[in-house]
């Protein structure tokens, strides 16, 4: 092997091979095929909208998404009017008004997603002391299972977790108020099985099986973790084409200029 190649191989190893080897307690996460994976992947708008519906009707009773605004929903294909209608269906606390009092009003597209609980203590009080994590970034925060930690790693995890509730094996000691999940590290999760299939009536007529719902929610949450992903990939394609052409020209210029030295 030539020396430059050896060098580069060494540094590539150091950079990529250094991923920590984690203790594998949970079952390995099945790999799903996602609309958004790969260099040209985009979010499946219909799946993301169905996922939003599942979030609205099921997840949002416990999980906040504090980084999202209703206006962001344009990004998964809702029209401005639809977004207005979705926002208006929420009650948002605003104020203080001229009397110094807080008041409720219908939501606007510029409002952040209304959280299910006013604060952490309220959530814990209502849910046996457990705190449901905010879901805005959950896919990026759980992307360990993918070798390059792309978004699909986190989506695989969410998709698997939602379908991973099983009866605990004989002899497995469960703590109080915990549920058995084969994909959760330690296998005990405070969240009860949120989906069972047919939890929602999809507007587009898709059959709401459990795998379908899990897939749709994972798609929606992936979009929510990085709404700028499509812009990033499209920009990247343009930048790379430019760089390839520019580097080619520079190489030719280098050959030309160095012709008299060699």
């Amino acid at each position, binding site marked *: 092997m030539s020396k430059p190649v050896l060098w580069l191989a060494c*540094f590539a190893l*150091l950079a990529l*091979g250094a991923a*920590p080897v984690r203790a594998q307690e949970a079952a390995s996460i099945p790999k799903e095929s996602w609309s958004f994976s790969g260099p040209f992947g985009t979010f499946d708008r219909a799946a993301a909208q169905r996922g939003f519906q599942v979030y609205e009707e099921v997840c949002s009773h416990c999980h906040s998404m504090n980084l999202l605004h209703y206006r962001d929903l344009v990004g998964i294909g809702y029209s401005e009017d639809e977004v207005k209608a979705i926002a208006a269906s929420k009650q948002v606390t605003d104020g203080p008004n001229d009397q110094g009092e807080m008041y409720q009003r219908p939501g606007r597209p510029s409002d952040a997603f209304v959280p299910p609980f006013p604060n952490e203590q309220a959530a814990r009080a209502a849910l046996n002391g457990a705190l449901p994590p905010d879901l805005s*970034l959950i896919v990026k925060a759980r992307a360990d299972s993918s070798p390059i930690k792309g978004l699909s790693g986190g989506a695989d995890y969410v998709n698997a977790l939602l379908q991973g509730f099983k009866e605990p094996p004989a002899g497995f000691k469960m703590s109080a108020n915990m549920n058995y999940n084969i994909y959760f590290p330690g296998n005990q999760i405070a969240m009860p099985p949120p989906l069972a299939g047919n939890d929602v009536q999809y507007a587009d007529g898709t059959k709401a099986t459990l795998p379908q719902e899990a897939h749709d929610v994972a798609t929606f949450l992936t979009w929510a973790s990085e709404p*700028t992903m499509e812009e990033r990939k499209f920009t*990247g394609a343009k930048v790379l084409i430019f760089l390839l052409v520019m580097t080619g020209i520079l190489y030719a210029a*280098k050959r030309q200029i160095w012709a*008299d030295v060699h």
Partner: protein
Amino acid sequence: MNAPGNQSQSKIVRWIDHRLPVFTFMQHELYDYPTPRNLSYWWNFGSLSGIMLVIMMVTGIFLAMQYTPNATMAFDSVERIMRDVNFGWLMRYIHMNGASFFFIVVYIHIFRGLYYGSYKEPRELLWMLGVIILLLMMATAFMGYVLPWGQMSFWGATVITNLFSALPVVGPKIVAWLWGGFAVGNPTLNRFYSLHYLLPFVIVGVVGLHLIALHQHGSNNPLGIDRKGPQDSIPFHPYYTIKDMFGLGVFLIIYALFVFYMPNALGDTQNYVQANPLQTPPEIVPEWYFLPFYAILRSVPDILFIPAKLAGVLCLFGAIGVLFFLPWLDTSRVRSARFRPVYKWVFWLLVIDVLVLGYVGANRPEGWFIVAGRVATLYYFIHFVVLFPVIGWLERPLPLPTSISAAVTKKGGARLAGASTPMEKP
């Protein structure tokens, strides 16, 4: 050597140059600057480091316009940059991956110096200034990593600042002073932000000195022998400007692949969870570029009366400190490893050793990782403190070529047409 500032076509240029010789300076240092004709592509990584520094500062300044250095708002402000600021995601991913690529480039630059003996007389101070730049970079990168205020930011800051508590007597006081409180908190974040903004400008200053020291004797070269006359040199422009630019193009393609298609591949997913002082993440691991040093820190056991923690901290700083003495630890007078039949191979042992340390640093100190970490740490210091002087004494170097041009041209040293005279402008 012509002084074009004074002979320029433009009256304005001549007027300025007579009073402030910036044009003459640029002509000498960027245009005519005689450079060995045989530099390989390994010599691209110096200018690439400089370009990375500029990229980091430019993107950093834009990020600073949108970032809020407050413990309750920092995490959300970074996400606001990702979501709502126009091209904020681009600035942030360039900056975030830029740290990794800056270190890749600088580490290659350092290993190139090690292989070709670029630290030897008369370039000792050039090398030592480079080690200072490395130290400043590490401090800057560490403090920058704290700013997004994710879980790994917070816990990384806690672990690293706690290192100083290992110092006897004054340790705990120093740590409280660094924190500005009794734990990593808002005052810590604020001062790290301030210093993260300051240190790059300090780096620019030291880079200036690094370049002055470089231009005093010019670049080393793959043969490691001095230039003996004009036939050994070519002017920096256009030969090395175009070579550096082509190298930059290749580098940017790889960098862009990460920025646009795997922007989080080199980061830790835990940093997308907001810092929570009440919950320790399953593993506290630094970014990859600190892993070899992290391994050294964790590998060292109790040494005599020195507790393991203090010994680890001393070895951590010693691992970089030893580089300062390298010009005198290496007793060989031959620079390039090409003519050093023993060192040529031992060099690769160091590369492997550092990779092993990096791998160990990424894993829990359990089982054979402890053994591997200790062996690799020991070897690291043996390499510098024992092998460098001993090989220099015992090794019999190969005969050196008589001159650069004799070695690299078939004709054997004909003066290059156009060498040392700038190319004609079209």
